[in-house]
């Protein structure tokens, strides 16, 4: 057998575990859920084609709008703030600091636990009367809000909690920072640049590819927020933490309206896709690539 043909054969063989799985667990489900979104599917197992009815109902559904709003609100604040926090921490840690590994560990630690454990912890941290945050605020003579008991403060509470875990991304930015060649900074110093200048004109632009990737993945991730709401608030108070995926879960796995839930899933997909495309399209404006620097 010709060697290139052999190479191709092995190429296919080695990639097949992924490919088969991809077709089985991604392609089929995506197509199936698309079809399902046009059907009514409830127990016991009756599938009825109903055309655009699910989508029409979704448009009229106040919970759809509310859950979308809640999710957008959360994403809009937690992602930029999280990225900014991670970058700031990464920059400070990148400077010559004594005990950098201790600090690095401390800042990264909150990202190490997740899911139910961290939700339970923050349930007590956020308690309005006896929780850590309001206690500290009271020492500063500030009356802390009711956090998870107040519809206006429940999302900010969860955003605060996500900021606490922003150390997880800090490592990625540390890596990105260390990619920036020292010479650039040295050259700038020689030219008389101050730190501020160095940050805005060297550090930040060269970090933009990392930021870009991180931004997309963070947005996709925060759109899917579920566990915190499920464990800590159940969607309340007053549905203020009814996030999109929580609502989808309720529709799909509690009311078992699987057609409707599939339609919800597809709308989520389209929104995320559009956002990603917009980000990619506008990336040329602000993301610096290697080629340009050269």
């Amino acid at each position, binding site marked *: 057998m010709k060697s290139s043909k052999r190479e191709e054969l092995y190429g296919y063989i080695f990639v097949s575990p992924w490919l088969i799985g991809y077709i089985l667990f991604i392609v089929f489900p995506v197509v199936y859920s698309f079809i399902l979104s046009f059907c009514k599917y409830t127990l016991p*197992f009756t599938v009825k084609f109903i055309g655009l009815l699910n989508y029409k109902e979704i448009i009229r559904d106040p919970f759809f709008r509310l859950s979308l709003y809640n999710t957008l609100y959360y994403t809009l604040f937690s992602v930029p703030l999280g990225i900014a926090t991670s970058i700031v921490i990464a920059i400070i840690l990148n400077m010559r600091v004594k005990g950098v590994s201790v600090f690095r560990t401390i800042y990264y630690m909150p990202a190490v636990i997740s899911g139910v454990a961290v939700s339970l912890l923050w349930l007590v941290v956020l308690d309005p009367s006896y929780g850590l945050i309001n206690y500290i605020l009271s020492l500063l003579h500030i009356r802390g809000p009711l956090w998870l008991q*107040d519809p206006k403060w429940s999302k900010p509470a969860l955003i605060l909690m996500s900021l606490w875990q922003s150390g997880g991304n800090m490592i990625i930015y540390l890596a990105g920072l260390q990619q920036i060649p020292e010479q650039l900074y040295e050259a700038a110093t020689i030219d008389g640049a101050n730190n501020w200048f160095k940050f805005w004109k060297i550090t930040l632009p060269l970090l933009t590819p990392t930021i870009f990737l991180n931004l997309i993945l963070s947005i996709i991730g925060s759109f899917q927020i579920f566990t915190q709401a499920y464990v800590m608030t159940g969607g309340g108070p007053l549905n203020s933490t009814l996030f999109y995926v929580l609502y989808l879960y309720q529709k799909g796995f509690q*009311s078992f309206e699987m057609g409707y839930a599939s339609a919800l899933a597809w709308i989520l997909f389209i929104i995320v896709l559009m956002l990603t495309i917009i980000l990619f399209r506008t990336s040329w404006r602000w993301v610096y690539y290697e080629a340009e620097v050269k």
Partner: protein
Amino acid sequence: MKKVYWSMSLIVILLLIFDGTGRAVTLRFWTGHGSPDIDKWFDEVLIPQFEQAHPGVKVERLRVPWGELNEKIMTAFAAGTAPDIVFSGTEQIIDEAIKGLARPLNDYIKKWGEYKNFIPMAWKHETIGGKIYRVPIHISSRALMYNKTIFKQAGINPNTIPEKWEQIAELGKKLNLRDDKGNLIRLGADLWYTHQFCQGFYYFLYQNKGKIIADDFSKSLFNSEAGVETLQYFVNLFNELTPPNLPALPSGPIPNFAAGKIAIYVNTPQGISDLEKYAPKEFEFGIAFPFRKSRIIQLYVNGIYITTQSKNPDLAWEFIKFFASSDNLREFNNTYFTINPRKFGAKIDDPFIKQRPLLVAFYEQAQKIGIPYPIIPNYGTLQNRILKDAIDAALYKKMTPKQALEDAAKKWDASLEELRKEGVFEKILGTK
């Protein structure tokens, strides 16, 4: 290549080990009810005794937390892995009948002969369209309990029985205590039984001679004047005692009512066991049956059924018969502190119950003024969405009670209309 092969096979073998397959005849028994004492009783008394009497049979008990019972059952039915026997709650009976989860037991019960020994009201709840879907195991209820010791401390006559709505509100206000930071030290009155506002609303609605839904399920009745009045009462009390801008009472390992952190509390008979376990000895508790236009107490009948997917219905029935026998039912209800659905005649002679005046009161009133808990199709949607949001909107003053209930009634009526179109009511009413 070889090493990969071996590690792959190892993975596959490990995965195959997780194929749950049973061997001997196993009855899978899911229960939404339980407590550490009840779980112990099931595992150490009821099940071993049954297994002894039926060699070769194993009973596998699984306790499913309330919030997830419906989900788990639906998922199991969808996957074809439903258990044999399910011990579920009051409201589920309607779904169990309509969605074909429970198997009608009329033939079994006829042969059993114990039908007449149960309170008729209990069977009424478990019978839909002439078919009996469950055997009643225990009856719960709601009543107002109050801490006489706190009354005394606050200068209120401990013999006051808070029965009238205005009385309850007044006492609640007087006994509500906050510190200077606004933290709640003692809640004067909690009428919503651990924040299940809907059930609290139903209870007081019926006291006000209101109804939730028309008997033929044609429309909602909770938006009547009685309903609006009831909700207004709740809204006033809630905003007086626990306004949303002040922190709520946190829950600790010791239930708040037993710890004296709540003065007046809508409680269940099961709650009496908490009082015995946790309340300081010097606390004295009283019980009252509030009313406005009619004296009622709701009977939350809980029963056990055989699933339609069970492959061993006869054996499952044997277990149910055993569980519902006179002795076992008495032991269960005394361990769980609930009302035994078997008739007890004119007087209670069970010493366990007799020594507990609070429990005796429940038994007596259940017989005297007990009304069945209403059957509500699609109650999940009503309670977890429509009515819950309406009550929340009213409590947080986003809408007036009248607006909230009207809005809810409109939505609920639309939902009922859909159910009618699917022919659900014909099944329930047994008519065409």
